[in-house]
């Protein structure tokens, strides 16, 4: 049985993360992770097969910061935004933290007004207490589909 107060804290972490991405506050994005955290976006087939390469991989906040810097200053793409829809997290105690799985659906809203289902899948997270805050020690975004529409530049 997971303590209801903890459940609330985990849910806040998940929703604060989604809000930061959806509100284009991406500079805050690396702060949701521990310093050496793993972030990966990977299709389900590759994940199930234990393959190491997906669509995006960050090892540590530095690589996440580079992603944000790149999409702000180097990468070229049509402006768009996400809207995350999150399912109810399943939380299980694990070594030094909690394993959290959360289904998601992300819509992509283009500058021309077009709204499409961009990605569905589940977050497979390891959440830990890092000082006073909860943070992701690892966050694997397991996509239901192996196909990305156009490109992927904003983190999911």
């Amino acid at each position, binding site marked *: 049985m997971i303590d209801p107060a903890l459940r609330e804290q985990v849910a806040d972490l998940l929703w604060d993360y989604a809000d930061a991405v959806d509100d284009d506050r991406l500079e805050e994005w690396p702060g949701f992770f521990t310093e050496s955290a793993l972030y990966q*976006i*990977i*299709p389900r*087939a*590759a994940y199930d097969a234990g*393959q*190491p*390469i*997906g*669509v*995006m*991989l*960050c*090892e*540590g*906040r*530095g*690589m*996440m*910061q*580079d*992603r944000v*810097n*790149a999409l702000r*200053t*180097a*990468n*070229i*793409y*049509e402006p768009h935004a996400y809207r995350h829809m999150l399912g109810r997290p399943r939380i299980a105690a694990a070594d030094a933290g909690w394993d959290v799985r959360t289904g998601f659906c992300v819509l992509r809203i283009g500058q021309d007004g077009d709204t499409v289902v961009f990605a569905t899948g589940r977050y497979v997270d390891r959440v830990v207490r890092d000082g006073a805050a909860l943070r992701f020690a690892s966050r694997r975004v397991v996509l239901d589909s*192996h*196909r*990305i*529409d*156009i*490109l*992927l*530049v904003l983190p999911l």
Partner: protein
Amino acid sequence: MDMPLNAPAAEVEWPEAGVSRVPFRLFSDPAVYAAEQKRFFRGPIWNFLCLDIEIPNPGDWRLAVVGEIPVVVTRDEHGDIHALVNRCAHKGALVCLQQRGNAKALTCVYHSWSYDLSGQLQSVAFRHGLRGKGGMPDDFDTARHRMEKLRIETFCGLVFGTFSEATPPVEEYLGETMARMIRRNLGRPYKLLGMHSQMIHNNWKLYAENVRDSYHATLLHTFYTTFKVNRLDMDGGMLLSDSGWHSISYAKRATLQAAEEYKTIHSAQYGSALEGSHLLDSFTEFDDGVTHCIQTVFPTLAVQYTLNSLAVRFFTPRGLDKTELFWMYLGYADDDEEKTRMRARQANLTGSAGLVSLEDGCINEFVQRGTRGSEDHAAVLEMGGRDVASSDGSRATETAIRGFWQGYRTVMGL
């Protein structure tokens, strides 16, 4: 009677300037697209189908595609590979439905016509009818019916298929220079490290141009320059096959290093403004000094080796203005964990979320949209000259794109 909207042009008139001009109509005319399915993809070209390591065992099969034609690639009980149009000889239904499978026979779900792994019809349900009534005519001969077969050839684990008897053997088709580079990159056992695809909203030929376009590399893709990545890539160039159809864009590391350094990680050489510079940790695998190469095989295949990121890219039309681009990331069978980690990190540079290359996901769509209503205009491809020839020493050239169009015109008879 109503005139059809967008009445297709009977044929494309190529500008007199030749392959330094490309009519925009080629990217948006439904008649061109329809003609390609018959004439081009069934023409004298080698189409990449899959990797042989994807069907390692007898009975394995995997779906593939040639243009829009559905194909299934099988491995039979003797270990031989076959490529068949995934279409039942009876009514034309798909025979294999799952992306991958293993079976002793291929059976159509519609009326249970059953084929061996080479596509030969073996049995037909109710052939002799039920209780002596119905059934096929007495002279119906299963030996005369089969799934349509493609000629196949495997080169360095790449399985190619062709519908044409006129297609020369793969090595001859590639030419010596191209075959040598494929052997360099794929000539030893390798494994699949991951695969995803990307749906780009443009005609397939715009990506065929884009992947051959070394001119745009540092102009559109500014990741390296923005982050002041010191690549020390001094020399580079664009090599074409004698036919002009295939190409290798390459860059070389400066050749100053001591021999001992060849076996070590050289991340320090990529000094940069990156916070997570281990992204670029790499090691020297080949002693030719080539750190980046993108090789194209006409028409829809590319093999990349950038730093240590080894990948096969394959793209295929999914309609007039849709193209699916597959990224198959590879490592060598004897890679240790450290090498695998470096390849995995470097995979961030390319693919649908590639730090260096993600712009290619939208740039071709910008051309697709930009040329709407301008079918009678043409692109101007004069960087590096107007001819089709290797460009040793410079990648500021569109010669490989002109080479693609040379091949396209030959096959299409345009």
